């Protein structure tokens, strides 16, 4: 598999590498963005990257368990989003902004 073949034939490896890149982008979002909501979105992106890996393996190994896990991850993600946003709301009420810097106030 050389040269053009890399682009013409799609293999499971493509999906894996794509999920790696997506995960890295998510990490960068968490590390660099200041807005809490965007940080949370980046986390969602990371979760999706992982989901993609699950689905890829599920397909490659011809097992459905991977898909089930994705299902669970999504549930957790939704829950996390709900709680996270609730915290954001609470933070906003107090600081009138949702900058990540808020967490510095939690320092003992």
């Amino acid at each position, binding site marked *: 598999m050389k040269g053009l073949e890399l682009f013409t034939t799609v293999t499971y490896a493509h999906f894996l590498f794509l999920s790696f890149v997506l995960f890295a982008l998510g*990490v960068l979002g968490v*590390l660099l963005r200041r807005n809490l909501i965007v940080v949370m979105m980046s986390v969602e992106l990371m979760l999706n990257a992982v989901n993609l890996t699950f689905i890829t393996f599920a397909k490659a190994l011809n097992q459905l368990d991977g898909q089930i896990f994705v299902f669970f991850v999504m549930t957790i993600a939704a829950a996390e989003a709900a709680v996270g946003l609730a915290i954001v709301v609470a933070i906003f009420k107090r600081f009138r902004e949702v900058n990540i810097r808020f967490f510095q106030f939690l*320092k003992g």
Partner: protein
Amino acid sequence: MSSELLFSLLIFAPLVGFAFNGLLGKKLGGHLYPGVIASVASFISFVASVGLFQLVSEQPEQAKYLVIHAFDWMQVGTFRLPVQFLIDPLSSIMILVITGVGTLIHIFSIGYMAEDPGIAKYFSYLNFFLFNMLILVTGDSLPLLFVGWEGVGLCSYLLIGFWYEDHEKAEAGMKAFIVNRVGDAAFLLGMFVLYSHFGTLNLLELNSLAPKEAIWNWLDPITIGTLLLFVGVTGKSAQVPLYVWLPDAMAGPTPVSALIHAATMVTAGVYMMVRLSYLYTAAPYTMIVVAAIGLLTAVLAATMGIVQWDIKKVLAYSTVSQLGYMVFACGVGAFSAAFFHLVTHAFFKALMFLGAGSVIYGMHHQQDIREMGGLNKRMPLTYWTFMIGWLSIIGLPPFSGFFSKDEIKWFALASDRGGNWIFWGLAWVGSLLTTFYMTRLMAYTFWRDKKYSADHQPHESPWVMTVPLMILAFLAATGGFLGIPHAIAQILPGHPNHWLEHWLKPVISLPTIKQGITVEYEWLLMGLSVVGSFTVAMVTRYLYLNRIDLIDRTRERFEVIHKVWVHKYYVDAFYQKYFVENLVLSSRDLWRYVDVGVIDRLVNKIADVTKELGRGFAWLQSGNMQNYAFITIIGLIIFVLFLFKG
């Protein structure tokens, strides 16, 4: 009556008296009840000991003892320690002396302590002392003896500190107990040594297992064991170097001094050595030490007795000195003589202490002999009984002291276990010193012109106090006939033998006479003693009554010696400075600089270091969440790197 029953009467009568007075005495009130109850208890005990004595004398010659087994005290593996009591010729006499003299002193105390609010407590302690003392002399093994040994020490502590509100008296009690503890610690070690060597601590077994030949070896377990036990003796029987507590012990009530610190408890050490006579004779090095210490004590204590002004202190030093004689007698193998002196000493010293008590009572608690004088007119009964005690202690025949002391001096020369002229000479000098300070005491207290003020008229004591005095005086006068010396016995009609020696023969090792020492020597020594004592007594009496200026001049002339004697050879000061104060000070330093300064600081330092470490790493906890996430990512990178196998 069976021996068990008699024995339980002997032991439990004082214990019941103790419990009764201790628990109920105060509630009953009154100043008579406690004393009467205690005296009755003591008297029951005395009757029981007479019965036991009778039983023992009925035993066959080969096994002249009774063993009363109570129960097993401790049993661990092969180590078995029964609570078992032994009534043999030795202990049967001891219990007679203890309960007999004890009863008299109880009765005396009824009068002496009548006005004291703590009378119930006093009598309960006294009974408890009897109980412990009886355990001491009847216990058939060293640990059981030790029970009594420490028990009497405990009672002594309680009774010395009886008037505890007085700082010094409380201190004297404590001193007595702790000094005794030093001896007791050695006593414990001695027991361990003997147990490891013989595998038993039973007194009879120890004596029978003791080798017949003397072992000339410092490192032999028997030598070490007996020496360690002897350290215990120096504590309890107030020998050099642990005698310091006894003079201070005079802080207690005077009858206590008579009972505990003269007649019975302090002789426990001598009793123990007599008891283990076979063991001691097997260790000749120990015997040398014992003899040297005993003689040293006898002479040193006598010199200190010369310069005392407190009537009880004079008697205390005299007690130390007489105990020295007993210990010395043990050291030259004359155990029977030591025991003989123990018995006669119990009579005449108890008599003298009670006499002193009577004087103090009559003088309204005045103890300084310089304030007395002329009491022979005021207190005739006390005077005459005291006189008998004096005659006895200076060793004039036919009073008891003459017989026992003379026997000791005789064996100082004649014993083939180390008797020699030097020993005899020192013992003789010691006895002359005794005569000197005792005569001085008599002169100051009785013979001199009266010194007391007119509004403190001394009075004769009531009969509860004088009757015991008289009984004791009788005993002190005649007690000597228990052991008539062989020389005298030979010329007496019927040749009465030395009864005590004969009686003790089954249980103790008897001294043998050196080759070449004949009966003429005995006459010679006896003559020297009697003439010496008589002369010294007369001269001293003359000097103190007529030529007091000569005495004063002599004292000034030898100021240095006088000072050393007054300061008790600086032994007390030495102990106080180098042991007590140094111990406390260095412990304080140890506490301050090692316990708090090093050990505890180290512990706290470890905690502090942990805390500082935490503070040091705290900058990581900046609160910047993205930094935390970043650190997580770094962790992830490291994890990924681990996946590379190479």
